[in-house]
């Protein structure tokens, strides 16, 4: 196999077929960029989960004076109940750590949290805030297991999972990611068909050469390789453009726009972008290679 021969054949093929080649590159680039954005969205979700799940806790509110809860009987939790609960929760294998927040501490935290709204603070007294056990779970998704274990315990009024507040947000992100993948899938289908067609036209426009190659006994590999590499080259260039697009997305949309606006959460980093980019190349080369291969099997019979 002589590299110079194959390279010059590829060059001839791509130039003859320039408009189709450009169309192929653009379609591949767009489809891979959307696919890559889908992957980044997935990583965004996990970045946010890491960030938030580390901070969320489960609150076990204890009965106060006049509580309506079924375990309270209208009276406040007794010190014995509280001690027993603390021990039992602390011993539960799901629990990483637990601490007790008294009404006074809850009031301090409340004042800190709403320090900008004086009228709110003035309307709340320590008595209005329930005492609670603050639980940090080893696995934040295991909330249900913990809740079912303690919801009926005496002295427990209510159990609240802070994670539940985040879930709708994650659902939206997951759906966005799904949409990105459906769009990417359709685009990739278009790209595969377009590459196939590009190769078919290339094979047709060089049928004189390939006919002679067959006659003089060139091997399949020698005849088909330039076409195959043409397709793969389109895939590589498309993937490179898609990678540049993703980097631009990260630099402009995430770093310049979202990051300064939404300081309370984590975003995908450059590490995530660089982890996604190799997959764009794998997919780009794989799809164009497969598409070219099957087109050649049909249209360049030896």
């Amino acid at each position, binding site marked *: 196999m*002589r590299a110079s*021969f194959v390279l010059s054949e590829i060059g001839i093929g791509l130039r003859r077929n320039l408009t189709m080649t450009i169309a192929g590159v653009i379609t591949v680039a767009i489809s891979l960029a959307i696919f890559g954005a889908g992957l980044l969205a997935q990583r965004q979700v996990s970045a946010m989960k890491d960030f938030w799940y580390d901070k969320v806790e489960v609150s076990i509110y204890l009965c106060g004076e006049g509580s309506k809860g079924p375990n309270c009987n209208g009276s406040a939790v007794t010190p014995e109940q509280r001690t027993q609960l603390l021990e039992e929760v602390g011993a539960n294998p799901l629990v990483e750590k637990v601490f007790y927040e008294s009404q006074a501490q809850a009031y301090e935290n409340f004042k800190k949290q709403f320090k900008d709204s004086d009228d709110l603070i003035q309307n709340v007294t320590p008595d209005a805030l329930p005492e609670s056990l603050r639980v940090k779970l080893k696995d934040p998704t295991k909330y249900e297991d913990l809740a079912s274990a303690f919801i009926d315990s005496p002295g427990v009024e209510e159990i609240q999972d802070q994670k539940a507040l985040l879930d709708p947000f994650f659902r939206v992100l997951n759906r966005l990611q799904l949409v990105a993948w459906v769009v990417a899938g359709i685009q990739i289908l278009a790209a595969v068909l377009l590459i196939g067609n590009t190769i078919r036209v290339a094979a047709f426009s060089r049928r004189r050469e390939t*006919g*002679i190659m*067959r006659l*003089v*006994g060139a*091997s*399949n590999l020698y005849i088909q390789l330039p076409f195959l590499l043409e397709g793969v080259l389109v895939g590589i260039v498309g993937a490179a453009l898609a990678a540049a697009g993703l980097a631009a997305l990260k630099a402009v949309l995430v770093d310049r726009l979202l990051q300064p606006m939404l300081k309370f959460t984590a975003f995908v980093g450059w590490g995530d972008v660089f982890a996604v980019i190799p997959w764009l190349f794998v997919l780009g080369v794989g799809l164009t290679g497969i598409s070219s291969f099957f087109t050649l099997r049909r249209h360049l019979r*030896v």
Partner: protein
Amino acid sequence: MIRLEHVSKTYPASARPALDDVTVDIEKGEFVFLVGSSGSGKSTFLRLLLKEEDPTGGRVHVAGKDLARLSHWKVPALRRSIGCVFQDFRLLPNKTVFQNVAFALEVIGKPQHQISKVVPEVLDLVGLEGKSKRMPDELSGGEQQRVAVARAFVNRPMILIADEPTGNLDPSTRVGIMKLLDRINRTGTTVVMATHDAAIVDSMRRRVVELSMGKVVRDQSRGVYGHGA
């Protein structure tokens, strides 16, 4: 060198067979004219030798190989042992004479130093010395056919197949091409030539196989184009 045993070929779209129970044996070094009217099966005969088609019946042996048992990936090796020349030359218009001939070696992976040695040799052999940098459209028909012969012969095949090689040429040029094919035959290469050209067949006095409606109706050593003699 070439043996067809009871070979039949029926194309899917046609009721009448293109070849019908053809048995022909061609020895190494022979020069055989394949004659017959259009549609008599000459082209099918040649296509079978190259395994461009498979017969619907019978066996084809070429250069010691049973083509029915030749696996797909060995077909290129078969074709390297057969050179081909056509009526329409089939040169690449954007390549020079040298590049056209070299192309046949490049695509079978021959190294550059060998190409630059054997291509001028074969161009000398076919009488095109000094024209290696010309483009095909700067050459006469006869010269273009010489380039095609050079390309077919540059890899020194055991068999040369020529399908109406003189069909597009004027009478004086035809003689030159036939002399060239004769010279190639004298190097020991088996030549099978399909033709309509009575004058050439008559003057060469070589073996003649005549096909009609897909059957061999005549196989005559030192024959002529028409019937009799």
